[in-house]
């Protein structure tokens, strides 16, 4: 059994990724788009596209009725939620099922269980998976959450019980700052997830963030596809991910993989998921703690696709259609090294503030071992309404050193102009001696901010380039005498 037509309930690079997998699997794809995305590449990547509402996500990509209407009107038989938006919304998954649409992801009950950090944690404790010491504030008032923090012992991490991605997350080091940080966390949690419930856990200083890709099918099989290290983060969002982790000994890797599979089995996990852990220390004495389960495809899934040589989205469709996992644990191998860099429209020098505007120039690098997943094109507009991630650069190579060299080379051939991005920052990051040495932790960027944020004065070549890029007879834009030959010059302008 396979699907006839799949609705992709997402936008940007992941919608394009899913449309490609559909095409290669012989499945028709239907994109949805908001008014702001009329000209976005994901609309053209699918076979069909349906307008589902105005720009704000709440009225488009987060609108369950609008998405179900689109699926019905195009006679889809399945929905792929991507990541973010409705991907971990159990009631969306349930509504899909009730409407006769297969939800490409875990069963609603599993999403629900994993969506509550509290329930997930209890389940893991029962399954013997180590967890970070932490408490749930029964009393969710400011005072109640503060009291919980005091019971765990400062410093603590206060986070949204219902979400991820750093939204609604705050490090609280003392009761004084808690007074402003707890309400801020709650506000963000409400804005992002519609639920302000907060969870408090012990802050492990300078931990590594490790996660294991797991995959289950409806026939009771569960496999893992090795780890990803995602320690390099800013504003609690991942910036760089790699596999294998430079921190793991074979013994720790084995224990981590076993814990992830145990966690997935305990959760009754089906389809692609990720079990996240914190790692304290390195080498033989390293200890890991269960953090949470991401009940969806991850942004950084290409890292695993590269080292394991698999297609996770294709496998999602096979499993969602009731098929068996396409791999046994024994057949899966890890080969080489992969690194993903997330290219964001943001200004690292200004607190990583998201940027919006027009991409005056946007050219992607290519070559052996280089994969770019992106949702933008040159001339397109980056809107204020959605996540500022422009592209993911995933490199793979025989060794970690070569992967770093390849990533730096690729980023130096990834010009994006018109909006500030983190490309220069990513290069300085990859080139940092501590990163090269594999000594990563989740506060790395904060601690090395000054080294990572220096920017040089323009060299002569840059000044000369700016000077010759000026029209000789004045500075008017669109001087037709100097415009390049335009092969589509006679294309009729409708719809532009």
């Amino acid at each position, binding site marked *: 059994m396979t699907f006839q037509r799949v609705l992709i309930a997402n936008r940007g690079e992941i919608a394009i990724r899913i449309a490609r997998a559909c095409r290669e699997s012989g499945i028709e794809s239907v994109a949805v788009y908001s008014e702001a995305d009329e000209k976005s590449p994901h609309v053209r990547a699918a076979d069909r596209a349906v307008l589902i509402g105005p720009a704000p996500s709440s009225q488009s990509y987060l609108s369950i009725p609008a998405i179900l209407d689109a699926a019905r009107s195009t006679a889809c038989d399945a929905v792929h939620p991507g990541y973010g938006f409705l991907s971990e919304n159990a009631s969306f998954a349930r509504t899909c099922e009730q409407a006769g649409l297969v939800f490409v992801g875990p069963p609603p009950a599993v999403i629900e269980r994993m969506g509550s950090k509290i329930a997930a944690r209890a389940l893991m404790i029962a399954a013997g998976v180590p967890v970070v010491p932490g408490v749930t504030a029964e009393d969710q008032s400011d005072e109640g959450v503060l009291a919980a923090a005091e019971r765990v012992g400062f410093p603590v991490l206060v986070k949204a019980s219902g979400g991820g991605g750093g*939204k609604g997350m705050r490090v609280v080091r003392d009761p004084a700052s808690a007074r402003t940080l707890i309400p*801020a966390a709650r*506000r*963000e949690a409400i*804005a*992002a997830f519609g639920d302000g419930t907060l969870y408090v856990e012990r802050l492990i200083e300078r931990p590594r963030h490790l996660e294991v890709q797991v995959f289950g099918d409806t026939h009771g099989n569960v496999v893992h596809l090795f780890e990803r290290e995602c320690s390099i983060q800013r*504003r609690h969002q991942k910036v760089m991910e790699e596999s294998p982790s430079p921190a793991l000994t074979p013994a720790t890797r084995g224990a981590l993989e076993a814990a992830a599979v145990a966690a997935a089995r305990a959760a009754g996990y089906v389809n692609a998921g990720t079990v996240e852990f914190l790692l304290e220390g390195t080498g033989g004495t390293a200890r890991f703690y269960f953090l949470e389960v991401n009940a969806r495809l991850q942004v950084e899934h290409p890292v695993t696709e590269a080292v394991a040589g698999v297609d996770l989205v294709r496998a999602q469709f096979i499993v969602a259609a009731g098929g068996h996992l396409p791999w046994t644990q024994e057949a899966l191998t890890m080969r080489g090294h992969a690194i993903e860099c997330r290219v964001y429209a943001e*200004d690292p020098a*200004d607190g990583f*503030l*998201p*940027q*919006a505007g027009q991409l*005056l*120039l946007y*050219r992607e690098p290519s070559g052996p071992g280089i994969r770019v997943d992106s949702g933008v094109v040159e001339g397109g507009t980056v809107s*204020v*309404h*959605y*996540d*500022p991630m422009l592209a993911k650069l995933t490199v793979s190579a025989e060794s970690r050193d070569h992967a770093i060299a390849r990533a*730096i080379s690729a*980023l*130096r051939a990834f*010009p*994006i*102009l*018109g909006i*500030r*991005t983190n*490309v*220069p920052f990513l*290069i300085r990051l990859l080139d940092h001696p501590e990163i090269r040495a594999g000594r990563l932790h989740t506060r790395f960027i904060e601690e090395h901010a000054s080294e990572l944020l220096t*920017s*040089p*004065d*323009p*060299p*002569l*070549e*840059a*000044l*000369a*380039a*700016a*000077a*010759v*890029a*000026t029209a*000789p007879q*004045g*500075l008017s*834009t669109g001087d037709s005498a100097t415009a*390049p030959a335009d092969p589509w010059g006679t294309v009729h302008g409708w719809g532009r």
Partner: protein
Amino acid sequence: MGRILILRASRGEYHVTLSEDGRVSIDGVTIAAMVSAPGEVRAGETGHAWVASSGELRWVFLDGEVFEIEVQPEGRRRRAAAGHGSLSAPMPATVVRVEVSPGTAVGRGDTLVILEAMKMELPIRASSDGIVKSVHCKPGDLVQPGIALIDIE
């Protein structure tokens, strides 16, 4: 015999002479440069830059660094800088809260307004000590960059 331009980057100003044969003289140092393809410039022996224009601003990508350089013909006046003492949104955003009102005394670094964009809270902070003169926004407003939110004197 060549056009004269003034270039301004974040930390300096440069006087440039462009000659028609592709040589560029920058504060007396000469380098060859030419457009090699749409949006691409070859400069010097080994420089490969990408360039895009927006009004008088040139964005230059060279060896993984991005430079924002303002280019003006010699003699043209620099555009007046944005009004002193007024604070604006760095990008289109929604106002979440306004922490001050006209007459409030503020210190450098104090949070004046909290905006939200892309699901992130963005605090707008005072860049110097002063007194709030006027407030031009209220919670719920969608504000555009470059438009004053708060004036301080």
